[in-house]
């Protein structure tokens, strides 16, 4: 099956007075139709920038400086604003962290949903209203025919996030980008929203790119997961493999640092230091100053994603001929180097 979304060697730069910062550096991945791809990483790893680049909402001074993004085989990263606007909402839906800022406080939720439906689909006002009520019912809002005329402030946080999900689903998009959709919510509500996202993705065949810092959410929801560090993907693969059998030292450290109920440990394993700032990314592998298994090659040469048993990891430990400086991984796709 051909991928729904292809991101090829994406590079995002921010021009600042103190020079150019590379926020996303040579990131490539695919999303298959109906698949849930989790994107995890710590703050500043570039997860959200990847998401906003795909929906074309990157704010200046940020700009796509290289690579391409293809939706259903068609390039979308260089479309003019007006054409991108038609794709956004129609083909790609978005859910953001804070449901209050995603909704206009001055309009009823019904008006906002109906407007979105009519922008993208040729429906009459009454048909659009009918569809809006159906959508609200589908995302689990009780008495939707009454609630549709309420304002955002009349809903609780969890209910607002359901409304935002309904908004994202209006035009039946084939891809939803969910950027930290449950971070602002309490655990019991978070569980409801995760279950809802999973069910809707399955029912509508919608692919979801789920961006979060919470590995637990990914473990419960995603099919595959991409782990990001300092603007690059360090490991990508099936979610259970990445969690239980991580191949990149950063992923190993990250998994070990997550406390878990029912696991008795005196100490959590910790990664010393912190993620480098964008203006001070070390040469070679960006993780090398913190890596417990660093060797010479890591400090000079940057690793591309290399195949391991079941995942791909950007780590020289998985080079076909370990520590031979000129070994060419063969399948690397014209990497853009800084």
């Amino acid at each position, binding site marked *: 099956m051909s991928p729904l979304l292809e991101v090829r060697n994406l590079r995002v730069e921010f021009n600042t007075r103190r020079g150019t910062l590379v926020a996303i550096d040579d990131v490539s991945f695919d999303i298959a139709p109906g698949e849930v791809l989790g994107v995890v990483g710590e703050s500043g790893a570039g997860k959200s920038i990847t998401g906003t680049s795909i929906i074309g909402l990157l704010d200046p001074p940020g700009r796509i400086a290289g690579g391409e993004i293809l939706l259903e085989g068609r390039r979308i990263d260089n479309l003019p604003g007006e054409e991108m606007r038609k794709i956004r909402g129609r083909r790609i839906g978005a859910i953001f962290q804070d449901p209050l800022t995603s909704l206009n406080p001055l309009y009823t939720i019904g008006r906002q949903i109906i407007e979105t439906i009519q922008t993208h689909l040729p429906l009459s006002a009454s048909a659009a209203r009918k569809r809006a009520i159906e959508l609200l019912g589908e995302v689990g809002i009780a008495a939707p025919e009454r609630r549709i005329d309420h304002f955002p402030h009349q809903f609780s946080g969890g209910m607002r996030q359901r409304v935002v999900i309904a908004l994202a689903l209006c035009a039946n998009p084939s891809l939803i980008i969910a950027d930290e959709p449950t971070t602002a919510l309490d655990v019991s509500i978070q569980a409801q929203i995760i279950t809802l996202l999973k069910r809707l993705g399955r029912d509508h065949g919608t692919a979801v790119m789920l961006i979060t810092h919470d*590995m637990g959410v990914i473990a419960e929801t995603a099919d595959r997961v991409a782990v990001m560090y300092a603007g690059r993907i360090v490991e990508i693969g099936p979610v259970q493999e990445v969690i239980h059998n991580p191949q990149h030292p950063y992923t190993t450290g*990250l998994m070990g640092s997550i406390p878990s109920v*029912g696991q008795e440990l005196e*100490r959590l394993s910790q990664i010393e230091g*912190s993620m480098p700032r964008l203006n001070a990314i070390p040469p070679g592998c960006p993780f090398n100053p913190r890596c417990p298994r660093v060797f010479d090659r890591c400090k000079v040469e940057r690793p591309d994603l290399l195949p391991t048993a079941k995942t791909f990891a950007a780590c020289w430990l998985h080079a076909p001929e370990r520590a031979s400086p000129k070994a060419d991984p063969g399948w690397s796709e014209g990497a853009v180097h800084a």
Partner: protein
Amino acid sequence: MHKAEGVLLAVSDLAKFFDVSPPWLNRVIEHAPRQILKAVDGVSFEIKRGETLSLVGESGCGKSTVARLICGLYPPTRGSVVFDGVDLAGIRDRTEMLAMRRRFQMIFQDPYASLNPRWRVQDIVAEPIRSHKLIADGGALAKRVGELLTDVGLSPQDGEKYPHEFSGGQRQRISIARALSSNPEFLVCDEPTSALDVSVQAQILNLMKDLQREHGLTYLFISHNLAVVSHISTRVGVMYLGRIVEIADTKTLFNRPLHPYTRMLESAIPDILMSGKARTPVAGEVPNPLKPPPGCTFNPRCPHAKEKCRVESPALLPFEGASVACHGIHDGWIPIRVEAALTA
């Protein structure tokens, strides 16, 4: 002075009501009634020396209010806080109060808001020492600040810098150094890691455990994250709408959750080790604390609720090594389930 064996802090029947009524004019003209928010309503617990008690619950359950009441940041509406045998409300003498204050400190959630951006780190860390007049000599003070910074994993030279030069995790280390500077016995930690990334969270949790062992500290740990709580605490209290619904040893609580709310919370947390487990569907949301339901406040969301739950508010009573406020458990109509996954 009476001291219970090993108990450092005893809180009994603590309550804090906030008056959130509309302004006087509206009350007179619109006949709007007075509105009282019962943020904390009758909370009692004890913390023994050297242990970590955690309070968990969702937003608005009153866990942070309890922390602030203990530290004296709010005056309680009712109830008492007894620290090392002394009732804090009974202290009238200012110097005696100051001496008491030195013995407990607080760490806050947001390391960006809790450090003064215009002060150098060395002044931030030295402030408790100065205000309690613990070290008069300037050289000795500088040495002590250097030691404190080393203790929390920073270098003494970092004292020259300002807070903005540090990352979130390092700032939280500065907060901890400041809290430790007056040699306290008891730390109240209000969500100390929830603003941090997981790998940094692991560093801070390890640091807190190390410091506890080295200095014999006692912690009250406030968090909404059950996994963090299960890792750090000796005992755990679960709060719902201003009350403790269950309190037990960490192991007991996680292996054999009694209260339906505790069970619901435990099945709701996404956990990397337990993906694919059967979830108890979580119904409903936390009710409006201004109009809590009558009887047991959890009854509208409880799958086991009966008539008694809608009428009579359950008291927190001991039950086989734990304390739980639930009619269903005490009257025996809720089956007790031991988590198979965790006992293995």
